[in-house]
């Protein structure tokens, strides 16, 4: 019983990361019908930029060993600001080099170009930081908190809280503000939105900036648990992508649901047979797609003949 509670708690934290990144997929998919297949590398970039800023603020150069007392909440938050700046810029670059030339073109060009962009980022990171993982202690310390017999790290609570907060904020922005309305209008129909005086290119760029920042945030949040590694991106991003697809790529709430579901399933199956975790997740995805191709909360698209 305790083990199950334990798995649920860490599943929720893991799910928060998946949901954040999945939400990023949703935003660009809705506005441009494309998404960044190199998002995993953006996650990596986020983690390293964040860790490096904390290191520099502690006067330790860009690769060093952080002690728990080095990582204060203020430094961690400064890292976050840095991530928003760097990843936002990367998002703009990504849009202009890898997405814009191919939007609306038939075929897979944008999939390949975004993967290419990711590979370049990964190798840049490899050049700067090298292959060794970079550890960062949690700003909230490493003391395990006991809830009903199950232990949970403060960082896991932070992940869950931050991701829920960000999702609620995004949901409110999308549904309650003028800019949110503009994003939704562009998602429904670009031409009509442009005719209503909405600056469509600006909204699209904003979508890529937000999407990249979400991935970067995911990287910063996950780094204290897994350590920051140049190679951690692919699996995380693939699972986030699966989460988006399972929940419904076109529905932000579906993506969130998918993220948490996947996190929970993954850690519950891990309880039973750790080595079956990934196999069963991807088998599950294939099954879900066969039964409900549009995702759990997705909208069915009827082709007009």
């Amino acid at each position, binding site marked *: 019983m305790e083990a199950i509670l334990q798995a649920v708690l860490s599943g929720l934290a893991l799910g928060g990361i998946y949901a954040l990144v999945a939400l990023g997929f949703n935003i660009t998919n809705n506005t441009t019908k494309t998404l960044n297949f190199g998002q995993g590398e953006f996650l990596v970039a986020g983690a390293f930029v964040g860790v490096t800023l904390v290191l520099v603020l502690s006067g330790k150069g860009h690769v060093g060993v952080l002690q728990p007392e080095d990582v204060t909440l203020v430094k961690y938050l400064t890292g976050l600001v840095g991530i928003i700046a760097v990843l936002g810029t990367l998002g703009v670059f990504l849009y202009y080099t890898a997405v814009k030339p191919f939007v609306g073109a038939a075929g897979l*060009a944008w999939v390949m*170009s975004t*993967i*290419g962009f990711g590979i*370049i980022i990964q190798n840049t990171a490899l050049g700067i930081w090298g292959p060794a993982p970079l550890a960062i202690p949690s700003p909230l310390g490493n003391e395990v908190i006991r809830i009903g017999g199950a232990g949970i790290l403060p960082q896991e609570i932070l992940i869950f809280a931050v991701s829920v907060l960000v999702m609620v904020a995004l949901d409110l922005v999308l549904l309650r503000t003028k800019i949110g309305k503009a994003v939704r209008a562009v998602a429904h129909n670009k031409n009509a939105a442009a005719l209503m005086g909405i600056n469509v290119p600006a909204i699209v760029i904003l979508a890529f900036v937000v999407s990249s920042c979400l991935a970067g945030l995911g990287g910063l949040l996950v780094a204290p648990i897994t350590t920051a590694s140049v190679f951690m991106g692919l699996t995380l991003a693939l699972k986030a992508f699966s989460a988006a697809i399972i929940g419904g790529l076109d529905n932000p709430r579906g993506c969130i649901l998918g993220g948490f579901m996947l996190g929970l399933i993954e850690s519950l199956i891990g309880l039973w047979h750790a080595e079956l975790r990934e196999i069963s997740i991807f088998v599950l995805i*294939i099954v879900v797609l066969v039964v409900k*191709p549009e995702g759990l909360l997705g909208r069915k698209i009827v082709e007009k003949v």
Partner: protein
Amino acid sequence: MGRNAHLYAFPVAAVLLLGLPFAIGNEFYLKVMFLVGVYYLAAAGLNVLVGYAGQKSLGHAGLYAAGAYTAALLTAKLGWNPWLAFFASGVVAGVFGIVIALPSLRVKGPSLAMVTIGFGIVMEKIATEWTDVFGGQAGIHSVGSLRFGADPFAMRDWVLFVVVLCLISHLLMRSLLAGKYGRAFLAVHTAEVAAESVGVSVYRFKVLAFIVSAVFCGFAGALVAQQNQYINSDFVTFGLSIFFLLIVLFGGGGSIYGPLLGAIVLTLMDAFLARWPHLQHFVYGALLLFALYAMPDGLVGAVRGIGRKIFPGLYRRPPVPTAVAEWQLQRSEQLHADAPLLEAKGLYKAYGGVVPTNNVDIRIRTGHVHSLIGPNGAGKTTLLNILSGIVPPDRGNIVFNGVDTTELISNHICRLGIGRTFQNLKLFTDMTVLDNVMVGLHPHMDVGFWPCMLGTRSASRQEQEGREEALRILDFLGLLAKANDIAGGLPYGLQRRLEIARALATHPKLLLLDEPAAGLNPQETHELIEVIARIRTKGITVLLIEHHMDLVMAVSDHVFVLDYGAKIAEGAPAQVQANPRVIAAYLGEEVAEPDAATVVQARPAAA
């Protein structure tokens, strides 16, 4: 490349490629050449799926693994003959191809990418985690190498063997993809609904494309496992799936030379840059990022563009004859005039609260021209979609020529003899006018997969006959001079007419035309009236949807009127024209009767 050029170039290339291993002394270069061949095989198969059938796969490393581990397990654990194991690997990979095809058929776009990625990862994880069987990272040693006699292949033997496999594959692919299979794959790629409407089973061709690509990938995997005499889970990565896809896209999908160029250039680059792994990955990323931008049709497209300027003669399509015999249906395909051809009863279809087809009965008689008219949103196209099997009705039944077609899908209905055109044109835009019509002939070209792949005489004879008939059909519709033009480049009016030509190629007993005059100028509309009259003289029954009343009145024997999904009138054109309910539907009622007001309110807003 034209037929003659290929006839000379192929033996020369074959001799050069078979001689090359003897000129290379260095083991490393031999290995590179071996890998070029292996990647070509994998990419040539994947090209059928990606370049021709238009299905994206990011999980083909999984199929490569299926082949590699089959060969490894059968030889190392069960002691099979290496040759037998090699062929078994193709078969097993083909079976896995079906396994991945079935879920893939249900989804499109990013979800399809996800299904294939998922498959690739599951295979990778199984190879890594199930160590009892697959050995995980430690791998499987002493995999049986292919051999003649007692000695296993040396590196040079491997290269020669792979070159032979590549040459054979090239010939097989060439004959398969130049004929009806290539056209059908491309048709599925560009317009699935249209492909179905001319009798091409989208389902069948997608599965087939998956199987072909899987078998080739499986052989590639087996080659690598048997040459190394070793395989472990590091061979199977997501990166490998991307590499396969990159070879096809960078080389140029949809051309048989694309994977060849891609495999040569990328493998050489990979080998050359291997000394600087860092740079290697950078170049790899940059290629992914910029190659498709600079060369949307891949290397082969770029080369072809240059080639066309220097040697225009090489790329000329066979000339079109200026005069051909008149197109005729066979006597056996003619039906008895005036007999009922199609009878639909109580057809009903609802989308939520909108009911575009509300208990409609229609009866179509052989040899007559029927029109279906009604205001916008009356449900005309939906009715046509139901009759042609694109949309299943919720209730009601349809009997066509003695067969109950209610439950049948589009391609089956086409084969029974219902052809159709589309309101929003659905041509195979990248194919030539002639090829569009030849796709229409697909259900009548009955040569099977193997003869087409082996390029037998019966396959080429049928191809030739098909071409001749397609030309006759084009002539019948005045499109003969445009036969070699790309369909997407035709003026709008001719595109509409090409759709009719394609539908006629299916030898329909009943031809459904969805707004054939939409967007036509008065001159073209006038010509269309003539075309419909001529189609009628061939004994083909017509049902058309139109808004041009002068056209409807000029060509129809019988008119159905729909309004809000229900049939409100039918009869001879003049009768219908005078019908007060029809006038009311089109122009509104003069006096607002009390019940009319409630009807307006009850009408759904978004019909």
